[in-house]
């Protein structure tokens, strides 16, 4: 019998669903090196069982060359999760209005241009993200910060050192600094981002600008943990960033 919405909410434990509640149906695929044939199938089954997948059924075991086998398997996972024990920050962020509205709000309530300095720091040469936020054409039809009447957007490009971005931020009296990190191999982005926060803490004279980190592997949680005011992942629209900066500056102004 289909359960009502309230009954669903009361459930604490959940597991994957195939066609019967609590059947734990999962599909896994992976490559096993150095083994083919029946031995590969058995090895896959054992692995599945170790992973807590009961009754594993190897639906396909394809030899892909170089003595390797690609496995697709189905089974029932014995584990479940207790939703009540999980914490997520579901801060429902207010949907950002468009460029014209934000420009209007800045003009009316802040009465000055917002200055934003952005760059890819460290060795990173992937400017696709920072360009999407800052350059005129923006992203997915949402215009970049350069296009805003009341935002002065300075895109320093790629491979900028933390010192260089600090100097520029000081020079331009930046309200916000956007730092992009695309490459994350060996967690290099964590090091680069932390060093930047430290540098700003030690050497920024006057009121620090908002520090915002962005990149495909960046989340708000990671960024805030590292000392940033906000973090953005892939698919972020320029208007979201513009609106966030505006709101924060408005808060600061109202506090004074």
């Amino acid at each position: 019998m289909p359960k009502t919405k309230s009954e669903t909410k009361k459930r604490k434990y959940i597991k994957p669903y195939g066609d019967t509640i609590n059947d734990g149906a999962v599909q896994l695929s992976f490559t096993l090196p150095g083994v083919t044939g029946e031995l590969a199938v058995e090895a896959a089954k054992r692995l599945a069982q170790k992973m807590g997948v009961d009754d594993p059924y190897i639906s396909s075991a394809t030899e892909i060359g170089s003595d390797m086998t690609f496995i697709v398997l189905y089974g029932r996972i014995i584990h479940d999760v207790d939703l009540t024990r999980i914490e997520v920050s579901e801060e429902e962020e207010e949907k950002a209005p468009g460029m014209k509205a934000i420009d209007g709000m800045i003009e009316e309530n802040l009465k000055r241009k917002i200055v934003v300095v952005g760059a890819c720091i460290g060795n990173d040469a992937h400017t696709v993200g920072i360009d999407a936020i800052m350059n005129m054409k923006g992203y997915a039809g949402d215009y970049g910060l350069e296009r805003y009447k009341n935002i002065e957007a300075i895109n320093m490009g790629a491979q900028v050192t933390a010192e260089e971005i600090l100097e520029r931020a000081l020079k331009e009296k930046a309200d916000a600094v956007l730092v992009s990190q695309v490459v994350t191999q060996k967690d290099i982005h964590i090091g680069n981002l932390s060093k930047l926060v430290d540098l700003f803490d030690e050497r920024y004279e006057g009121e620090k600008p908002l520090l915002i980190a962005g990149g495909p592997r960046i989340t708000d949680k990671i960024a805030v943990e590292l000392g940033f005011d906000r973090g953005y992942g892939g698919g972020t629209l320029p208007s979201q960033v513009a609106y966030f900066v505006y709101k924060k500056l408005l808060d600061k102004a109202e506090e004074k």
Partner: protein
Amino acid sequence: MKSKLDLDRKMVDECRLMAERIADRLHGFIVSHSTDSVERSVLRLMGLDGVDRKGTPLANIIVDAVKAAGKLNYGVAGVVADLMAAFDVDVDGDGDIQSLAGGISKGDIKVKGKVKGVEPLPPEKRREVLRPLVESGLQRIKKRVDERNALKERLPMDSGPLLYVIVATGNIHEDVIQAKSAVEMGADCIAVIRSTAQSLLDYVPYGATTEGYGGTYATQENFRIMREALDGAGEKAGRYIYLVNYASGLCMPEIAVMAAFERLDMLLNDSMYGIIFRNINTMRTFVDQHFSRTINAHADIIINTGEDNYLTTADAVEQAHTVLASDFINEQFAIKAGLPPRLMGLGHAFEMDPEIEDGFLMEVAQAQMMREIFPDAPIKYMPPTKHITGNVFRAHLVDMMFNVASMMTGQSIHLLGILTEAIHTPHVGDRFLSLQGARYARNNMRNIASEISFERGGRVEMRAKEVLKRAHDMLGEVEDIGLVEALARGMFADIKRAPDEGKGAAGVFEKAKGEYFNPFFE
């Protein structure tokens, strides 16, 4: 090729004429200037290789020393010839340029002092001194060309689109394992993605490398290692395998030399990519791309251009014409460097939002249009990336649509879509699934292109005509103001690049009129 799209031949010809005039306007600057990288590549062509104890390439050391002596605008080759003669170095092979470089590097030979004190040799004498080195370099390249031709005859490649996949572990030895496996799975071209930011290094790293970020460093030794591996894999598979790398960045001419010496088959070599997407100085890129493409032409290496990048952030429906306009421009720069159409892997991509009604028809229209406008070029078709999310099952389906579009329009180089795009660099199983799909399409639809015609006045035809018209208009605008100004205004990818900005500007210089010497460019 009879047009299935009823494309306006006159309009296509006009596009070519405008692109020619656009390139012409820059040609004067290009041939009257040189760069640090061009000069370093001249040394490499003459057989110079190696690094000093700190890892600085000897090519950089010599060029920097000649620059510091205020003589680089006469061309590094001339100074080297003068120095060799002054030291009575027996020119019997490239060991000499190597020991000369070693001497300069250790400070035994003071270029500044020497050049000031020594009368420069007359050009004839310089040519004589360098002749064995120059000939040796050219011979080495010719040998590779002959080798490739012999191999391709004995190990023929597929007639349909060539299947191109990437490896990018950061460790060349790991890459070899992945590459061999990819060949076994049916790949025809293996591209080794470079370590991130290599394009912004003003030197080429040396030796086999085992660490990189988001890719593997392009070094001559890495080229050699992978070439050997692919030759072995090709023998086993019964077909020649193309090795691909990327020339883009501050060292285009040097990478072109290394690729020529190690028998690479394709190189990413775009006349504008570095400017727009890596913020490399405009004039530096134009001079570098010309010399590097000239080397590519001698080495029979196919160039690939990077038009897919225009669609990475711009809307693929709205900005399709920028891709075509860029292809026309890249074609003209290629012609000026001596590349025949069969070596022009001009780029285009399948990047529209899969949710768009009739989006597939537009993709097919554009792919067919490219095919017809560049009939003899091994055009490079690039897979969907922008709208690929982490849903790998859906990604796999979108990639299959791409495969179908490629077969329907008779594409030449098919860069495989991979279901884990934007998640991680390909795992061996991902590559297997991707190749399985591409081979399925290539075989199951082998001859479909010759069976297809399009509805006269239909959606496909109208879309192609529209894109051509907009590209034509854009080329007119670019011609009016010149390419340098067009780039400064952000006409390409909406990214503004001023001609005096960007990395590597300091490495561009005007050749000393009537006195610049470059034995390879005579």
